[in-house]
């Protein structure tokens, strides 16, 4: 497959090495798309929280822990790559640079942990293109706020679906670290670190739609077989 033919958006299939998630999420919620960068600057993910839906009974029954861990791994890849690129470009200074260094280290540790847990079932790292948002303090801050609020909401949506007690313990311990990251960067961006008494979850297809709306992710080497029908092409 050539790179030109292969470039496509992230799909839920990509996390679903066993095929368990694929049939469960069939409805796209297009109204959550493109909100990511436009609205998050002022309101965090409040706007997105309002449209969040609880995972259905069907998805709870069908989602495997492996798919959930791969979903988490994909989010960690995205964040780790973002902070690593920001560090490499070197446009950040002072408190913002410290945030990027420390948080980037955490996200890379999360990637490593999930890859070790998943072993040969781990999805490959996608190719990212951050379209220059890592090149200035302003765009870095805005994007980091959106990423961290998104990650906390994503872990919150997945945690109740995890079947293994030990994986759940690990996911919860990372969920709260993502929330700390969110509070940290929100404060540096001039937003209230804790804007509401209750944080809302986002389910997997909402998270994927939001990530796709950024066009930060392109997959050139699909991990699932080509006979899979492309249900989720963003």
């Amino acid at each position, binding site marked *: 497959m050539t790179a030109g033919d292969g470039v496509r958006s992230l799909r839920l299939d990509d996390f679903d090495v066993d095929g368990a998630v694929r049939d469960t999420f069939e409805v796209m919620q297009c109204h959550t798309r493109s909100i990511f960068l436009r609205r998050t600057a002022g309101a965090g993910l409040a706007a997105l929280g309002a449209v969040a839906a609880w995972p259905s009974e069907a998805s709870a029954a069908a989602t495997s822990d492996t798919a959930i861990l791969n979903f988490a791994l994909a989010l960690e890849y995205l964040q780790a790559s973002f902070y690593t690129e920001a560090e490499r470009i070197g446009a950040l200074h002072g408190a913002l640079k410290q945030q990027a260094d420390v948080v980037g280290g955490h996200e890379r540790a999360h990637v490593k942990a999930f890859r070790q847990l*998943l*072993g040969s079932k781990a999805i490959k790292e996608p190719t990212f293109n951050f379209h220059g948002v890592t090149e200035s303090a302003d765009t870095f801050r805005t994007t980091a706020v959106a990423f961290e609020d998104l990650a906390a909401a994503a872990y919150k949506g997945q945690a109740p679906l995890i079947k*293994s*007690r030990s994986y*759940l313990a690990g996911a919860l311990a990372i969920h709260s670290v993502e929330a700390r990251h969110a509070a*940290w960067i929100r404060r540096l961006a001039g937003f209230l670190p804790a804007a509401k008494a209750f944080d809302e979850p986002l389910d997997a297809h909402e998270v994927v739609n939001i990530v796709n709306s950024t066009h930060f992710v392109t997959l050139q080497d699909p991990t699932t077989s080509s006979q899979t029908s492309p249900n989720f092409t963003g």
Partner: protein
Amino acid sequence: MPPFDSTEGDRPRVSSHLSRGTLLKGSIAGLGALAGAAVGTTELAASPDAHGSAATDKEILTFGLLIERLQAAFYAEALRSAHLTGEVHQFAQVVGGQEQEHAKFLESALGSAAGNSPHFKFGDAVTDPAKFLATAISLEETGLGVYNGQGVNLTPASLAAAAKIVSVEARHTAWARALAGKLPAPVAVDATVSVTRAKQTFQPFIAS
């Protein structure tokens, strides 16, 4: 709120249930695995499943209510007595209001099982601004650690509800730490706090 089944007649047995070593060992193993210990893929299907019961939910959420009531009272008293200014004042006001909302949410979920709040005594933690911040960090870190440790013992529905509070507690913790000049997120994977240790931390503040 369907997640919380406040079955009448269940005796409060918080300490006996929540301190069961086997349950905590499960979560520690998970943390160790995610923190980087080598785990083969064959273990993906071998871990014991998460379960939980209505009775256990009630015990855990009753302790969560104590945490929220203690924190809400702490911030309310500090706002009255500590002469807080600037962002520290804003922190106490915003966070205090959110702790009150958490307490109300848990009271409503627990129904008659919620019981009355104990009385609290905070001494100079609510009059001395420096002690206020150190105590805020201690109470927030402890509350967060308990929620994280007990999350694996909740039913999925109660976990989903509690998780909406947990990340807000994590935000409070990070904010308090930033105000004290500490790293808001010092580690990649948050540690848990046992109920026994939390009780020791809270003990000096409980008057009756």
